[in-house]
């Protein structure tokens, strides 16, 4: 009996089978991340329940049950007879109040001025924040030096009356500069080139001050808008931006003072910093609105907004000083020694070598301080100013829009605005942190 033998020789490779369904794609991902063990599954279920428990009512309130258009409270009230229905957000109310939330009670005819300030702010800030944009130096000068003055004139209307004492004071600065230069040349034995920085410093400051004063006091035909009618986001931004811009130089000075070798300077800086960091902002605001007028000579009165700004600036300068100090401490000692070996004095060393490096390092810290300050501006409503939250809070007294959900809607709107600003800034801070980190890898 012949034995039949069959051979099977595969001449082609078997096709590759796809990975089991349970390990790839969505299912695989879910198995791995959500249901890998019993405890993990329990956690997933709990998490989903919590998420549903929070998100579902929120969507119901903010979108499904929400009223988007309407002229007054009738639109947002539950229809007659149906108890409790239509208890969604009343967006029509936010729409009606939107100009107030953004500009406060700023005169309607003059709102274009605020808009220009907003636009300038955005136009200057965006290229400054983007590392790839050129002309950083010019941009910073425009943003930190020119923009505040232009914004001030646009928002207040300029035409500030300036006493002759101020002009004399400016002239005095220039005179002091010339005098010091003369003394240095005669007694200190320096030539003209040696005293040039002193001359430029003093006389330049005087000239810049004179230009600013001239611009601020000029009558540009803008009608005056007093700060009590400012409000809403305008006040929030003015306080936050002024606070941070003004506190930066003060904070740098304090940080340098805290690391100074001169004992009295160090002591004064430490006391200043620890004092402001140790007290709550609300007491600082009370101090600036109640106590500051007592400190001033008779007849000198400050605008309420200005008083608050002074308080906020001193307060945030202390925090800024600590941020900057962190940057100064991160600079290796060799940089200081190198600069000194090159024969640089203290200020050129700081200005040319240390501060450019240190400030670059602390950009994320500065942004974080700014976020904190931005959120803390809401506190001014306690001393009777109308920032965004204050404006929303005060709109609750208006009977035209009084509905059961008015408060919820107003707070939700405020929360969204603050979240968008703060979250955006914190993302930017993280982006800068990553970017700066690469430069310091060894």
């Amino acid at each position: 009996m012949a034995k039949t033998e069959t051979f099977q020789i595969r001449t082609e490779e078997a096709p590759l089978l796809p990975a089991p369904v349970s390990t790839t794609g969505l299912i695989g991902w879910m198995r791995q991340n959500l249901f890998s063990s019993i405890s993990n599954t329990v956690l997933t279920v709990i998490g989903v329940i919590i998420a549903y428990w929070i998100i579902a009512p929120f969507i119901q309130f903010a979108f499904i049950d929400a009223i988007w258009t309407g002229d007054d409270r009738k639109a947002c009230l539950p229809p007659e007879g149906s108890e409790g229905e239509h208890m969604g957000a009343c967006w029509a109310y936010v729409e009606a109040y939107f100009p107030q939330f953004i500009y406060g009670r700023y005169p309607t005819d003059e709102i274009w001025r605020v808009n220009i300030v907003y636009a300038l702010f955005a136009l200057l800030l965006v290229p400054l924040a983007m590392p790839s944009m050129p002309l950083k130096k010019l941009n910073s000068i425009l943003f930190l030096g020119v923009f505040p003055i232009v914004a001030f004139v646009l928002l207040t209307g300029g035409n500030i009356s300036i006493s002759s004492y101020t002009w004399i004071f400016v002239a005095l600065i220039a005179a002091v500069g010339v005098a010091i230069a003369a003394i240095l040349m005669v007694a200190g034995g320096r030539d003209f080139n040696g005293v040039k920085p002193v001359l430029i410093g003093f006389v330049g400051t005087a000239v810049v001050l004179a230009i600013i004063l001239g611009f601020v006091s000029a009558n540009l035909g803008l009608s005056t808008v007093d700060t009590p009618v400012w409000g809403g986001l305008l006040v929030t931004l003015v306080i936050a931006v002024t606070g941070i811009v003004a506190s930066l130089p003060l904070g740098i000075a304090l940080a340098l003072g805290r690391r100074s070798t001169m004992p009295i300077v160090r002591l004064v800086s430490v006391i200043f910093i620890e004092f402001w960091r140790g007290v709550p902002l609300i007491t600082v605001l009370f101090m600036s609105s109640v106590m500051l007028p007592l400190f001033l000579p008779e007849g000198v009165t400050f605008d309420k907004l200005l008083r608050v700004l002074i308080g906020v600036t001193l307060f945030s300068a202390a925090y800024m000083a600590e941020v900057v100090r962190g940057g100064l401490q991160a600079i290796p000692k060799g940089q200081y020694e190198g600069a000194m070996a090159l024969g640089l004095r203290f200020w050129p060393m700081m200005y040319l070598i240390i501060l450019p490096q240190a400030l670059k390092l602390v950009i994320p810290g500065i942004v974080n301080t700014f976020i904190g300050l931005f959120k803390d501006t809401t506190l001014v409503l306690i001393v009777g100013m109308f920032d965004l939250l204050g404006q929303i809070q005060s709109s609750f007294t208006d009977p035209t829009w009084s509905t059961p959900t008015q408060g919820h809607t107003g707070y939700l709107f405020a929360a969204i605005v603050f979240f968008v600003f703060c979250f955006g800034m914190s993302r930017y801070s993280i982006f800068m942190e990553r970017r700066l980190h690469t430069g310091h890898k060894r």
Partner: protein
Amino acid sequence: MSVMEQDSARAPARASLFNDPKVRGIFFQVVLVVALGYVGYNIVDNTRINLEQQNIASGWGFLNNTAGFGIIQSLVSYSETSSYGQALYVGFLNTLLVAIVGIFVATIIGFVVGIARLSDNWVISRLAYCYVELIRNVPLLLQIFFWYFAVLRAVPGKREKWSFFFDSFHLNIAGFRGPKPIWEDGASFIGIALIIAIVACIVIAQWARKRQEATGQQFPVFWTAVGLIIGLPLITYFVTGMPMHLEHPVFVDTGPRIRQGFQLNVGFNLIPEFLALTAALSIYTASFIAEIVRAGIQAVSHGQTEAAHALGLRQSPTLRLVIIPQAMRVIIPPLTSQYLNLTKNSSLAVAIAFPDLVSVGGTVLNQTGQAIEIIGIWMAIYLTLSLVTSAFMNWYNQRMALVER
């Protein structure tokens, strides 16, 4: 001419006063002191003149005057006939209460969320991430308003209630009520027993540590401590004849409408202002603590976990014995500043009229006009609190710090 210049440039450094760093330093410091003194003198002088014109007598005498206003929550006995000084003391105690309760709750939430953020479970870590980002990017004041005006106004009105836990705790618009323990004669023995138990625990813990160092034998310190701290007072309670009873809040829903609702001063009550403030403060601060905890745990290198696993430790002992002790070193310094922030932020109580130091002080300020004294008291107290807290946390930090050779 150029020769002259070069000569002067090459001339050996003279002992010029202008270029001597020491002299310059002294000069600048003298200038600073004179300037500060001048500003300070002007401020004091102006203030004196202004106060004289407004007929405000400066000084601390007003603290003994009768306050004449009520305070809705006080930890010590206080009435409208008490003095301003006592009112401020009540406010100070309320600030402390909010700060301590807030720190306690915020730490728990913060650690839970921070660890959840590192969870392998995607849903849990995303939830924790959303919590952190949403809460810390919205101003605290807005959150206080939200809890006070939006959430706590949605609970039942004065004449209704929500009850939980076998009908012993109740919530309505007047606050959160529960049974209050009333101590009778002999209750002090329970307190003494508790103190003895705590002392015993400390002694046992030290003995156990020494024994473990000497012999390697472990002793169940934790369970012994739990047993002692709960058991000893409990035994004393029964031995002394149960000298305590619970006073339940009384809810009246019959009779004249005006009398309906919870009876005043019966049982234990937390006012809604306190609830809103503590909730907002702890939830807000917890979002920062969560980030600190996450960063702290991530700062411990993964090699530590692997080494612990290689030694045969399971997940929970790895966390407890290896990761957390090392992470704490990174966590404690920023945690301190968060505790300080919470304490300082408790001053926002004034926005919802919870009678804390700032709120009571504001009322006193409005009544007496003693702005400088009141603001001085505020700042002094908050500064002291800050310094004490940071001193304590520094001490703790030093104990926890890595002991290097």
